Every structure is written in C-alpha cells, then in structure tokens.
C-alpha cells in the first residue's frame, strides 16, 4: 500500500515538532527516517499510526485519509513503537495471542500465525518465558513479531535495531530487507550504516523539517558538489606533475596526498570532470597512472552538513 504524507505539521506548545513534511512511500520500498534525536521522526511515525493527530496536513494510505478511515486503515499497519513497550508479565505466546486477537485475526488462524512469527523472529527457544525474563534482543524480536503478526502491508518500525548485538542487527536487517520486497516499510534510526544497509530511500529530518529525500547515492551526489579524487602518477618528477596538473583548465585544486608516492588529491572545478584531461595529460607526457580513486563523501558528512546548523 502506498503512503502519501501531505504538509504534515505537529506543534507541541510553540515548537513545531514536525514542520510541513510531505513525502510518498510506495509498496516494496524501504524508507529510512534519519535524523538527530528530537528531530521529529517518532512524532511523524505516531501520526502515521494514528496515535497522534496532525495539527495540519493529511496522511493518505492508498488514497484514503487516515483521519476519516482510521479503524479500517489501522488494520494494515504493523507498528513497533520507540523503546518497544511490552507487557513484561506476560509469556511470549500469550502476548502474541493477545495481539493477534486485537488485530482481529480469525481464532482458527491464530496458532498458525504465532508459529510462523516464532520461526521468522527466532523466538523458538524463548517462547514460553515471560517477556520480562527475556534479554533486550529477544524483546526486540517479540516487538517485531507483534508488529507483523497480522501480516500487515505497512510496517512502521521506530528504531528496530536499538539494543541488539551486531549479529542480531544483521539478522534483523536481513529480515527487514526480506519483508520490504512486498511491503511498505518505514523505519527510523540514527545509525547511518543501518540506513545504507537496509533502505532504498533515505529521508533526513532535522528540526521537524524534511531536509533531504533520495537514495544514498543521490544524496551523496547532492552533497558532494565538486568532484574529488586521488591519483597516483608514476614515471615523473612530483613537482613537475604537480605544476602540469595545476595548469589543466578543468582542475580547481591540486594537493599532495603523498609526495614520496607521487599521489595527488585533485578537486575539479564546479560542474566539470577533470579525469579525462588528467588521463590525456599523462598519456602525452608518457606518465603512468597507477591509481585513480574517487573520494566519496561519507553519509556521516552529508548527515552532518544537513542537520547541523
């Protein structure tokens, strides 16, 4: 199911927790909400799940307004809230049974669904324990199982991997990727490698505003500006090469990356690429290029430039 968010605004007192956010998510897409703490990720998710009502704007799921068809639309949403609240005094199976019943699953289908969730989320060894006795990783799995028990077409996951160890994180990411093929998934996180690893698209939110929307590559390109790369040119005098590079019309800045190794960092002029000219220069002077490595801006830097200020 497609989610369409239009001009969503939510105020807490005088501060705008969410400020005029619009975006769309389609079936089979995994979208990652990225932002510093308190940026408005959770508030947006709470509005999509109808726990909070927006002050302005609209949430459309398959063209139907959440405000008007909440009872019907909520059926299609699986939600893992922030901090994963659970009834700690309930055994895992009883809890999943309760959630399944609340979701209106037919009684005869419930045991099958629970079995499936136990397998998918790897809860088999812990299924008879009380939730309070489980480690944080297993609790998180129970939270995921609860969100998916009714096979929803939309999954909203607020920090799904928080508190998990690296192995579990990889498993959960794999699970989300798997699910994302046929479902609409929105997940929030402030762990950058996580979005790169799991999401098709990234939305960066800062101070309640949507500051970036795109794939990790397109965001990189956007933030990159000028082309930057390092080259290693052999069979020539370092200073001579340096001067020759400097004189190329498309080259903006040249710097020694490693003088003894004849490595240079080149920044092209805005909007043009100097890589071909560098190659041609080397060919005409009979120098040999042994390395040419583009310097990519890390997502961390993009994130910082977009959210700090």
């Amino acid at each position, binding site marked *: 199911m497609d989610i369409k968010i239009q001009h969503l605004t939510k105020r807490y007192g005088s501060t705008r927790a969410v400020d005029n956010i619009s975006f769309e998510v389609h079936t089979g897409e995994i979208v990652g909400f990225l932002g510093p703490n308190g940026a408005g990720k959770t508030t947006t998710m709470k509005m999509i799940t*109808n*726990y909070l009502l927006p002050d302005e704007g609209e949430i459309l799921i398959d063209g139907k307004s959440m405000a008007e068809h909440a009872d019907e639309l909520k059926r299609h*949403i699986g939600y893992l809230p922030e901090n994963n*609240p659970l009834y700690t005094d309930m055994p895992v199976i009883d809890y999943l049974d*309760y959630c399944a*019943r*609340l979701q209106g699953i037919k009684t005869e289908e419930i045991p099958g669904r629970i079995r499936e969730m136990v397998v998918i989320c790897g809860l088999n060894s812990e299924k008879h324990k009380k939730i309070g006795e489980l480690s944080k990783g297993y609790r998180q799995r129970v939270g995921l199982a*609860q969100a998916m028990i009714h096979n929803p077409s939309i999954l909203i996951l607020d920090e799904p991997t928080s508190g998990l160890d690296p192995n579990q994180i990889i498993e959960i990411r794999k699970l989300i990727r798997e699910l994302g093929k046929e479902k609409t998934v929105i997940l929030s996180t402030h762990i950058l490698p996580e979005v790169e690893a799991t999401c098709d698209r990234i939305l960066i939110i800062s101070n309640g505003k949507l500051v970036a929307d795109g794939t990790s590559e397109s965001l990189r390109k956007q933030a990159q500006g000028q082309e930057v790369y390092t080259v290693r040119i052999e069979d020539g005098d370092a200073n001579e090469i340096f001067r020759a590079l400097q004189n190329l019309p498309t080259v903006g800045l040249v710097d020694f990356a490693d003088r003894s190794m004849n490595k240079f960092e080149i920044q092209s002029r805005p909007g043009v690429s100097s890589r071909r000219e560098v190659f041609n220069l080397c060919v005409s002077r009979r120098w040999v290029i042994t390395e040419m490595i583009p310097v990519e801006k890390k997502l961390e830097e993009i994130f910082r430039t977009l959210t700090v200020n």
Partner: protein
Amino acid sequence: MKIIWIIARKELQSFFDSLIAYIILVLFLGFSGFFTWLYVSDIFLIKQATLRGFFNISYWTLFFFIPALTMRMIAEEKKTGTIELLLTKPITDRQLVLGKFLAAMILIVISLACTFPYVLTVSKLGNLDNGGTICGYLGLLLMSASYISLGLYASSLTGNQIIAFLITLFSGLFLHLLFDVFSQGLSGFLAEMFSYLSLQNHFESISRGVIDTKDLVYFGSLIFLGLFLTEISLSKRKTAG
C-alpha cells in the same frame, strides 16, 4: 463487542497472574466475613436474619478496594508505553475503556458471588428477605460500577498509580460520605442538592429494597460520566500540544 471482551479477558488474567485478584478477594471476604459474623453488631447479636450488616460493611470495603484495583489499569499502560501499542491496533479508545471497565466489574462480581454462602447460611437461620437481599447486592454492584468508572478516569489522568489511587479515594470520599454530611449541615436547595449527590443516600435507598428510577438514573449517570471522561482523557493525547 468482541474486542471489548478480548481486552477484558486479558485484564482479568493479569489480575489473577499478579495476585491482585487473590489479595482483593481474600481481604474483601475476610473483612466482610469478620464483621458480618463475628464482631460488634454481628448477625448473632442482633438476632435478625438479615444481611444489612454485610451490605454496610461491603459498602466500605469495596470503597477502599476498588481504587486499588483500578489505579494501575490505565496509569501503568501510560507509564510503560503499552498504551501506544494498544491504541495503534484497530481498536477504539472506547473499546479499551469498556474492556477495562468490564474486567474490573467481573472481578467485583466474582467477589460478591463468593459471599453467596452467607445468603444460604442466613436463610437457613431464619426468614431472609429475598427482595431486600437482591436489592442489597444490586446496590453494591451499582456502587462498584460507579467507583470503577471514577477510578479509571483517575487512572487515565496520570502515569502514577499512587496518585490515581488517591484521586479516586478522595473524590470518592465526597460521594461516599461528605456530601451527606454537607446536606445535613445545610438547609433548603443546597441541602437537597447535596443529598441527591450523595452516593450513600442512593445506596441506602436501594439496599433498603426500593428500586427507584431516581437512584438508577443517579448511578447510571455517574458510571456514564466516569467512562465518558476516561475516553475523553485518553483521546486528548492525540491533539495535546
């Protein structure tokens, strides 16, 4: 309706799992039994086959137990965040409130049903007024329902159970005792108003064996008001800013 029952069943289960149910049952039966059969104006002393003593004791024991029962029902969910889990499922705020109300009500019915041997015993001892007994139980049920809905409202106001307990107890005290005291100290319209507001008067009138529409309307509106306010207070989260 089905959703309400699912919620009520889970709540009842957690009453029994957490021992709250047993504690309430034992204390309720202990107190009411002690004062009905053994102490001060017990049945053997007044030498009448009546359960009036039991109803008067229960009137007070339930008054204290119900806030203890209802205080955690919503406050805890708010505190742990599970309320968010519940209300993002396809259930309405109203279904949640009614489910919780039903669960507490069933527990009270179970406690009262456990006192049924008293009725049997007393009716063996003498000529028990059946109508009066039924009305006495009805009065207790209506009173319990009123305090449960009040307790749920208090519980929905805060994430702190102790505060919920105290709010219920203090506001209940007005209905239970103080309005009657006011009405006796005043005269004219105010006296009449407080006398109508006093839950005690209505309870006594019903447990005396007279079912008056006036009393039913009183209890009905009290229950409705409590539940209605609880629902409002729950849905306030949506727009709170």
